[in-house]
């Protein structure tokens, strides 16, 4: 706790500045104050928590799960077959420069207001970083350890299961922690572009009503949920990976 003190203080100072600025400008439709947002969050709690948060979380969770599945599959195949690696790796790296948000409207065009247009945006934003990070994890396996296993008569499968998988586990966690905020962003942007529920959609609706605090409230909610999820993942990670310092 003590070592977090400076950053906690900084955040408090920033919040205070924000509060001061908002009160100075005194135009909540442009810059709502932090306290104003909290009050609005409380007033809107029923639709936010009952309808829109579950909708967004559904998109996020579904997109993330599919991304993890596909990302692992791709990472494993590239590790298994060097030809696939040669063909796919550069493409994946290059594809990360595509501005996903810019092509998101296309998905709305193709899949309409159904959940799949949003899930697709989420997948597109998280799939590649997961695949690359996990693949790099496989590649970080120490060659000497691999050779040692080989001298014990290990097969390619043994080497994968007993060496590469545990080596890549910390990378897998990093990938997940990186993907969670990305998937939330993806879902919210997609909802903003075209949806009938969800926090992104709700935020946009408040915008049309010039309700500044109402625009911010779902955004704050999203951020808090993403942070909490990452925090939980970190706890699981620390329980599971006790050896990180050694690598």
């Amino acid at each position, binding site marked *: 706790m003590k070592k977090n003190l400076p950053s906690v203080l900084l955040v408090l100072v920033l919040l205070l500045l924000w509060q001061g600025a908002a009160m100075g400008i005194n135009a909540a439709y442009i810059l709502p104050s932090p306290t104003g947002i909290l009050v609005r969050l409380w007033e809107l709690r029923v639709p936010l928590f009952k309808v829109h948060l579950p909708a967004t979380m559904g998109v996020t969770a579904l997109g993330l799960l599919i991304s993890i599945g596909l990302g692992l599959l791709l990472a494993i195949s590239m590790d298994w077959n060097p030809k696939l690696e040669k063909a796919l790796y550069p493409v994946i790296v290059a594809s990360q420069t595509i501005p996903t948000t810019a092509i998101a409207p296309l998905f709305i065009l193709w899949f309409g207001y159904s959940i799949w247009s949003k899930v697709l945006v989420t997948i597109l934003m998280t799939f590649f970083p997961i695949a690359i990070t996990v693949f790099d994890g496989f590649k970080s396996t120490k060659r000497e350890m691999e050779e040692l*296993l080989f*001298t014990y*008569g*290990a097969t390619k499968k043994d080497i994968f299961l007993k060496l590469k998988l545990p080596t890549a586990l910390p990378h897998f966690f990093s990938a997940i922690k990186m993907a969670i905020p990305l998937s939330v962003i993806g879902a919210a942007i997609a909802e903003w572009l075209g949806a009938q529920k969800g926090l992104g959609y709700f935020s946009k609706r408040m915008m049309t009503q010039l309700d500044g605090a109402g625009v911010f409230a779902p955004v704050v909610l999203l951020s808090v949920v993403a942070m909490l999820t990452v925090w939980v993942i970190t706890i699981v990670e620390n329980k599971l990976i006790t*050896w990180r310092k050694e690598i």
Partner: protein
Amino acid sequence: MLRFEGVSFRYPEDELGMVENLSFQVADGEFVAIIGASGCGKSTVFRLINGLERPDGGKILVDEKPIETIKNYSAFMPQKDLLFPWRSVEKNVSLPMELGKVPMGEQEKRAALVLEQVGLADYAKKYPKDLSGGMKQRVSFARTLLSGADMLLLDEPFSALDYLTRVEMQEWLLAQWAHYHKTILFITHDVEEAIFLAKRIYIIQDARPFTQMESIEVPLGYPRNREALKQGEIVELKESLIGKLRRSVSL
């Protein structure tokens, strides 16, 4: 018995060969040290024996059978312990048995027995990060033993340890050897270590590629005592070996 018959080998990336037309042999149960300047190809000899590299020419035989046709005849212990940090001591030493499809119950029994023998019974459930350098090497040795092979290839296993630990580990290794009756090939660049441990020393003097290793008997019996290293004959042997190594370095 291990026998090299006119073995030649060159790493594809290298211009110069590593070994050329090399022949030597090691009898069952022998403790042989291999010494030579660093980079002269000692580790490469081990890589050839354990099948990580294939010779370009010649034959490597164990009990008169080509090594390509047999399995689990040798076990390799590297300089770095290479313990898996996510496995407990017990699970680390069981690794070769896991790969050899030894039944679970049998694995646990053998692991417990060997850990007892190497003096680490109390550490079975601990992780590598909880162990000292000397202990890690003992775990690594136990893992090598549990591969079940009769020939152990130890590549500078103690060179990363501090002096006192190293001396202790040398005595410990001799006790283990007396207990298990395995054949040991031991690479080192420490002449004193070679003399204290080995019955016979192979010394590599040629510049690359080397074609022979001079065999030198150590005129000491077992069990050994560090005091014996002070005998005039042994001191002379040490001086002459150091002289030979020096000449090979200056080439």
